[in-house]
């Protein structure tokens, strides 16, 4: 697939991230919908597609997507429920683009919303009851503890690089009014290094805090965007995704992720190399994921991620601005809408609407998604999206 700019993102919306905010996923999504309608001036009747992420809080309702249409007054001719964890946002855009190109619909609301910190956590079942829960692996925290330990063994891990990432993201969050209030305080490298272990060698400040929130974008064909008189638009120009990377290889190296496949694929389709990327909004459930993501996509050789971080200005004023709204680790993880937080920030930056933290010349942006904790591996889904201005 060669680079095409036939698909456009013409609007975005985001709620503030809250801790146990008490509002439902429907209500949060409704707020994003209203923002998108207001921002684009679109007649909601013209939205004929819905690409919606699965949630933690509402997943006991297998008809969540259809209920959402009812809530929002939409009658889509195409509807897609994305169960890709943190990849659901960018994966939702890729699927919407395919549906639009296939003529199934014209304009798609891509939304993610979750009230995980206020709601129920569904039981994931499968092998976990027999082969995970009795052992006591502490979910994602435990899995990333194992991953961090193995990474440290194979390549060495410079704690100063993780501290730099923690501080860079926190500084960005302090400029983001939508970030969760609880984390709105400055952080130093020493704070990170002194943070207590939750699953050694993983620290508390390596980790996200589960919150509530919603985000979304409006996607249509570039042709239709012009017809609608869209004030601003950017284009998804390359996407790569893989689920259960090396899943059938029992002894695969767990420090190598699906980004080693999804990253090059997205870049190839975008006609770019890592050097061309102006800013990156990588999925950050744990800081070590950022190191592995940068390596596997090809920003630096394998095992050199810490060095790359130490030698690169990742602030909004830097050479490779990273998670300029604070990332999930410092803005709060709105449950399974977490992947959309960094996505929406990318769109906001490219629209030139990031205020105090605006990146200069925001010509393109890479966004990544990570989803699901599998048995004894790194993560279940890896997705990479490259967006470019017109």
């Amino acid at each position: 697939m060669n680079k095409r700019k036939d698909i456009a993102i013409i609007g975005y919306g985001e709620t503030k991230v809250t801790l146990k905010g008490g509002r439902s996923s429907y209500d949060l999504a409704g707020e994003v919908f209203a923002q998108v309608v207001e921002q684009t001036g679109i007649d909601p009747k013209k939205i004929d597609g819905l690409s919606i992420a699965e949630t933690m809080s509402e997943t006991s309702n297998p008809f969540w997507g259809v209920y959402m249409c009812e809530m929002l007054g939409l009658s889509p001719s195409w509807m897609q429920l994305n169960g890709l964890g943190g990849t659901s946002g960018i994966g939702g855009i890729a699927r919407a683009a395919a549906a639009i190109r296939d003529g199934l619909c014209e304009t798609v609301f891509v939304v993610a919303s979750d009230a995980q910190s206020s709601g129920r956590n569904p039981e994931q079942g499968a092998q976990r009851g027999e082969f995970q829960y009795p052992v006591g692996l502490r979910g994602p925290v435990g899995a990333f503890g194992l991953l961090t330990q193995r990474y440290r063994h194979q390549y060495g891990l410079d704690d100063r690089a993780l501290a730099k990432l923690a501080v860079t993201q926190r500084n960005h969050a302090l400029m983001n009014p939508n970030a969760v209030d609880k984390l709105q305080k400055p952080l130093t490298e020493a704070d990170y290094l002194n943070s207590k272990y939750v699953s050694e060698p993983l620290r508390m400040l390596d980790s996200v805090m589960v919150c509530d929130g919603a985000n979304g974008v409006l996607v249509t064909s570039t042709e239709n965007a012009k017809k609608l008189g869209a004030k601003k638009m950017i284009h998804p120009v390359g996407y790569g995704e893989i689920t259960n990377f090396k899943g059938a290889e029992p002894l695969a190296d767990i420090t190598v992720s699906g980004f080693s496949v999804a990253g090059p694929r997205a870049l190839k389709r975008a006609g770019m190399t890592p050097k061309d990327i102006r800013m990156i909004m990588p999925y950050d459930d744990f800081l070590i994921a950022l190191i592995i993501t940068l390596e596997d996509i090809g920003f630096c050789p394998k095992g050199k991620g810490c060095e790359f971080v130490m030698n690169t200005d990742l602030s909004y004023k830097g050479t490779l601005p990273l998670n300029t709204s604070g990332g999930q680790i410092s803005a709060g993880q709105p449950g399974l809408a977490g992947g959309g937080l960094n996505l929406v920030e990318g769109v906001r930056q490219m629209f030139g609407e990031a205020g105090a933290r605006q990146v200069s010349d925001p010509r393109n942006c890479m966004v990544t998604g990570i989803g699901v904790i599998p048995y004894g591996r790194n993560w279940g889904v890896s997705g990479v999206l490259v967006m470019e201005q017109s």
Partner: protein
Amino acid sequence: MSEQAKAPAKPEVKKIPRPMPRPNTYMDTKPFWEAAKNGKLVIQYCKDTGKPQFFPRPVSMANGKRNLEWREVSGRGTVYSFTNTFSAWPGHEDRVPYMVALVELEEGVRILCNLFNVKAEDVKIGMPVKLYWEKLSEDINYPAFQPA
């Protein structure tokens, strides 16, 4: 008397017990638990390709067929990775801190497990380990590992 007046001064904290494995929740794993009860660790092998796999699955990951059998393995392996758990999974609060590891068996699969009879600071990646059965109940032996 109102409902509130009857309520105890301090709400009782309901303690979640340690999660126990229940055989056959997602497929037929009974042979695994039967063997465990007899002190034998068995894993699935694809009869066509000879490839082992763990955890148990409904098909061979090597060829997609259901031509699988259970074979006893040595119980010997090495530590692939480990994490000392301070923040417990629900039901494991009394065990903190406890050691969770990925052990690579000689036969070529990895198993998520606890490590016993070793101090946290002595655990190393590559360390040889052998099987240790943790008796969770009269009927359930759970596979764990200890230094070899």
